[in-house]
């Protein structure tokens, strides 16, 4: 610079504030056009926010459904037959007593679905007479297992250890099955026939919080079932454990040892799923596809802005020539068009963020969910629009800088 003669005139300049003011003025004077140009970015950014927000929201809902009940349930499967075909039943006869010694267990017991031949029916009269409730399962369940199902009694009582020890012929049935069998009250001591065997209905439960499908089954004391129909088929029995809150994983580790110290490998304890795994699984599944769609929207938005800005450059050739005549350098013209496209992108980003949030809140209202949107999403979305606009404006701005002023002014 020092070698050349000193500048005869002060160079022209364009302050950031003036460039912004020009861009905003350009947008405000053509509001309809600005809105249409920004529409692509609105949709792109809007779907980004909606997808991210809905994903976060749905993850939160699953966390909510992962409640105390599932967090305190451990089941132990009998896999003895798979390990050794001569192993016999996996669970010992005193399974319930053994589990009572394990800390952290509230209720535990063995249960299995009894295998009956097809002619054996359940009904108010012996098999082959009356109107049996077909398809009714008979479930052998020790008193601890019944308690672990968390039943709500409607009438009567549950059977206890006494009934178990004495091989009593008592059953507990669900309210649905009771209605189907025509049993409305226990005051008349109603009887129930499983095949030819009569049982006394001890209690009717209104609800089971765990395994509610057993509301349509007949629950029989384990010892009674074993005496009448023999031991369970290999692998059919399982142990249901209701643990104290937070003890489930330790109980799952200990239960096979407590039940079969000689062969813990014959039993397989299933702990409750880890809630953190649940959440990440859902997020990965959902967001991948939808984020891709949102990205495509954003690219379409960028192409829209690029196209409109390019058309504007061609349309405003005269204006470019005039600005050059007024002292604007090529880079000033570039800066102006870049600022305009970036402002359009930022506007689209802001509107899109608002629409995306409204979508999330709207869906949550309908589905009765709690909306969850990460603050980073809300902060980054308008920026995404701005960057989209900037990128879209690069080529048109370059074209604008190359417009020959003499040529442009001839129009």
């Amino acid at each position, binding site marked *: *610079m020092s070698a*050349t*003669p*000193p*500048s*005869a*005139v*002060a*160079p*022209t*300049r*364009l*302050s950031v*504030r*003036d460039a912004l*003011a*020009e861009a905003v*003025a*350009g947008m405000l*004077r*053509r509001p309809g056009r600005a809105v249409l140009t920004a529409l692509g970015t609105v949709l792109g950014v809007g779907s980004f926010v909606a997808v991210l927000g809905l994903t976060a929201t749905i993850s939160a809902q699953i966390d909510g459904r992962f409640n105390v009940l599932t967090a305190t349930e451990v089941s132990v499967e009998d896999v003895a037959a798979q390990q050794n075909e001569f192993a016999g039943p996996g669970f010992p006869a005193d399974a319930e007593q053994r589990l009572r010694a394990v800390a952290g267990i509230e209720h535990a017991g063995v249960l299995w679905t009894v295998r009956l031949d097809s002619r054996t029916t359940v009904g108010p009269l012996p098999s082959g007479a009356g109107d049996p409730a077909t398809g009714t399962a008979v479930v052998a369940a020790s008193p601890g297992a019944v308690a672990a199902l968390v039943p709500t009694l409607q009438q009567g009582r549950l059977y206890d250890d006494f009934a178990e020890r004495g091989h009593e012929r008592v059953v507990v049935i669900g309210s649905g099955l009771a209605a189907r069998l025509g049993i409305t009250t226990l005051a008349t001591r109603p009887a129930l026939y499983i095949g030819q065997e009569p049982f006394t209905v001890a209690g009717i439960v209104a609800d089971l919080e765990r395994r509610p499908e057993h509301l349509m089954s007949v629950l029989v004391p384990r010892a009674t079932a074993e005496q009448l129909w023999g031991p369970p088929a290999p692998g059919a029995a399982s142990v249901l454990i209701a643990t104290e809150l937070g003890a489930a994983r330790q109980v799952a580790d200990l239960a096979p040892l407590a039940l079969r110290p000689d062969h813990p490998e014959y039993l397989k304890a299933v702990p409750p799923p880890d809630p953190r795994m649940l959440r990440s699984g859902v997020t990965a599944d959902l967001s991948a596809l939808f984020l891709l769609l949102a990205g495509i929207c954003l690219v379409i938005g960028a192409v829209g802005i690029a196209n409109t800005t390019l058309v504007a450059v061609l349309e405003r050739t*005269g*204006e470019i*020539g*005039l*600005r*050059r*005549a*007024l*002292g*604007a*350098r090529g880079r*000033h013209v570039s800066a102006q068009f870049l600022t305009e496209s970036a402002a359009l992108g930022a506007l689209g980003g802001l509107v899109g963020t608002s629409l995306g949030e409204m979508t999330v809140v709207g869906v949550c209202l309908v589905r009765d969910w709690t909306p969850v949107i990460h603050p980073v999403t809300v902060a980054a979305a308008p920026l995404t629009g701005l960057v989209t606009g900037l990128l879209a404006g690069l080529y048109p701005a370059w074209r604008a800088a190359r417009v020959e*002023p*003499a040529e442009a*002014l*001839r*129009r």
Partner: protein
Amino acid sequence: MRLLRRQSRQDPQPSDEGDSPVIELRGVGLTYPGPPPVEALHPCDLTVRRGEFITVVGPSGSGKSTFLNVAGLLDSPTSGRYLLDGIDTAALPDRERTALRGRRIGFVFQSFHLLPHRSALENVALAMLYTGIPRAQRLVRARAALDQVGLGHRTGAVPGRLSGGERQRVAIARALVGRPSLLLCDEPTGNLDSANAASVLGLLDDLHGAGMTVLVITHDPEVARRGHRTVTIRDGRLHP
């Protein structure tokens, strides 16, 4: 560099004005490289002194546009020396040619070149956008310039609501507001009816009377007669 810039900003009337001519062309010509090469402007000499009202007249295709582009620093001559306000423009880098154009020349075009969605005031203030004058001052000066051309009452109107004569007055106000050394008018009445043309030419007379150097390029001998001196251009040759 910074010191120089500050000096020239404090002093809007350049110190080198003195008695040097506004325009001094010495053998200035423009040949577009071929093939085949086109000699759009034959090497010519022309001196425009401060405060002159000079017209350049010629039929279409005579090289008027080329002359305007060279005189307005929109195009660089391929031969000769062009001194504007005593500054040799040939040696200047593009950045300073642009600055010189923006600060020392006020353009008036046949087609006005007003921004359609901006008010008259904003259109006039636009002339100072690139010269580093604060926005508030730009608006004050733009209002004064509109007053000067008799449009003080239409500052808020967009060009679409102005008559042709009013539009050209806004354009003249825009050319004036930067206090240029030269008002360069290209067919200023070409798009106007005779009444509006007369009023615009009257305005140019007034500005000349106030000391402005005015150069009008036209094909119309009637308009050319308004100048105190007329130069004819034909086939790219200037005939003083």
